[in-house]
């Protein structure tokens, strides 16, 4: 398998230095789906360059948390700020904000009618206003780095799941985001394809990208994660370093949860 290259040319903000100031701040965030209280008074600060792994049982609100950060889901109470600025309302400004937040979905969601190359260049051309030539040159670099450069002219349906997810990562990176959100990026993949995606993510973390990763991959959490956030029933129950969390969970919910997933 092609190893991603060493040198990332992602955003200037992250390659320069790891600072400790907060990039994403969730302050007393609540959200309901009708009667269902899916986010309960969530407080979370994500520092620049930090890799936060979010873990928790199904339905605990992990996806909702991710989607709230780029406002694919609006929240009902509290505030979310990105790089010091509160998330704007729906509209042009919000679109601009979303361009700063990369998102990788469990089901890849590559644009089915566009080639791999077009998938990656669409945002830079339409949102950033880049020239087609420049956007394509950059897209090919990114595709090479995630190891699918030779597939650039194909359509998503012609690629394996692992390849598609790596394209999805390249597509998000092409926007030069300040933070990347991953919502269970490997759980729709066959086992043999999981590692190729994780390797890309680990490399990205090493390059200093700020990342929020919803995953149950403990290997990834241990290698690349700075912090584990454990959620249950819409609330953050426990936060710890990966090592502490996996070896010595404090809450009963976490112990129970780890007991279940470690059996597998």
């Amino acid at each position, binding site marked *: 398998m092609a190893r991603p290259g060493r040198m990332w040319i992602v955003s200037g903000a992250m390659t320069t230095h790891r600072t400790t100031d907060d990039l994403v701040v969730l302050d007393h965030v609540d959200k309901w789906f009708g009667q269902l209280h899916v986010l309960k008074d969530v407080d979370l600060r994500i520092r620049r360059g930090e890799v936060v792994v979010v873990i928790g049982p199904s339905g605990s609100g992990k996806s909702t948390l991710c989607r709230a950060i*780029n406002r*694919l889901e609006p929240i009902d109470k509290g505030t979310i700020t990105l790089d010091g600025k509160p998330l704007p309302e*729906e509209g*042009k400004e919000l*679109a*601009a*904000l*979303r*361009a*700063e*937040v*990369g*998102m990788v*979905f469990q*089901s890849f*969601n*590559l*644009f*089915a*009618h*566009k080639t791999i190359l077009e998938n990656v260049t*669409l*945002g830079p051309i*339409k*949102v950033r206003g880049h020239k087609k030539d420049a956007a394509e040159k950059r897209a090919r670099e990114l595709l090479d780095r995630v190891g699918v450069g030779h597939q650039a002219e194909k*359509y998503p*349906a*012609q690629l394996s799941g692992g390849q598609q997810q790596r394209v*999805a990562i390249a*597509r*998000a990176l092409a*926007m030069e985001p300040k933070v990347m959100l991953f919502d269970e990026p490997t759980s729709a993949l066959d086992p043999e394809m999981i590692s190729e995606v994780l390797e890309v993510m680990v490399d990205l973390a090493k390059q200093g990208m700020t990342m929020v990763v919803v995953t149950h991959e403990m290997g990834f959490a241990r290698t690349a994660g700075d912090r584990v956030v454990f959620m249950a029933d819409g609330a953050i129950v426990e936060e710890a370093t990966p090592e502490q969390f996996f070896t010595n969970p404090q809450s009963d919910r976490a112990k129970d949860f780890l007991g279940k997933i470690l059996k597998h």
Partner: protein
Amino acid sequence: MDDVTSEFDLVLQAFWLTIQLAALSGVVSLVLGTVLAAMRVGPVAPFRLAATTYVNVVRNTPLLIVFVFVFVAFPNLGLLVGTPFLLKGVVAVSLYTAPFVCEAIRAGINAVPLGQAEAARAIGLTFGQTMGNVVLPQAFRAAVPPLASVLIAMTKNTSIAAVFGLMEATARMRYFTNNSADDTVIFLVFALGYIIIVETLSAGAWGLERRWRVAR
């Protein structure tokens, strides 16, 4: 009779008018129908209401009545008096066809997985860009077969213009049958003309489907 054969240029002229009417109406209906569909799925409530109302009202109105409005009622009110007949025909056929186009495309939009629009929004595309670059192109692909049916029906519907001042194929057919003793040949010639137009449309739709199959 040898009428149709000896005056075949009249047949060709008539079908040329039918083709113009169908082609122009097709383009206008597709544009108008797409706009209506975007309004119906869009986030602006008054647009949604307006588009939904239009679609429901016009879909439940017989085509003949739409023609009467455009060709008789409006001119009686002083509207569209100087408008060329071909344009009035395009207006009538398009006003009537657009709601059907809208519904075919809306069905196509609903067939596009939600994740496609989310991924588009997630990279910062606006609602308009998301529709224009991601959702509609895929919706069109899914809507090709129903759209082909709509356009085929529309082509045949242009024959109503025969009794609203346009000497298109059906009007010319009635010119020939009025004169002639043996109508069978005339009917066959004109039916064949329509069949050729409709089959061309079907072939086009089939070609598009084939071309886009790989990308779905």
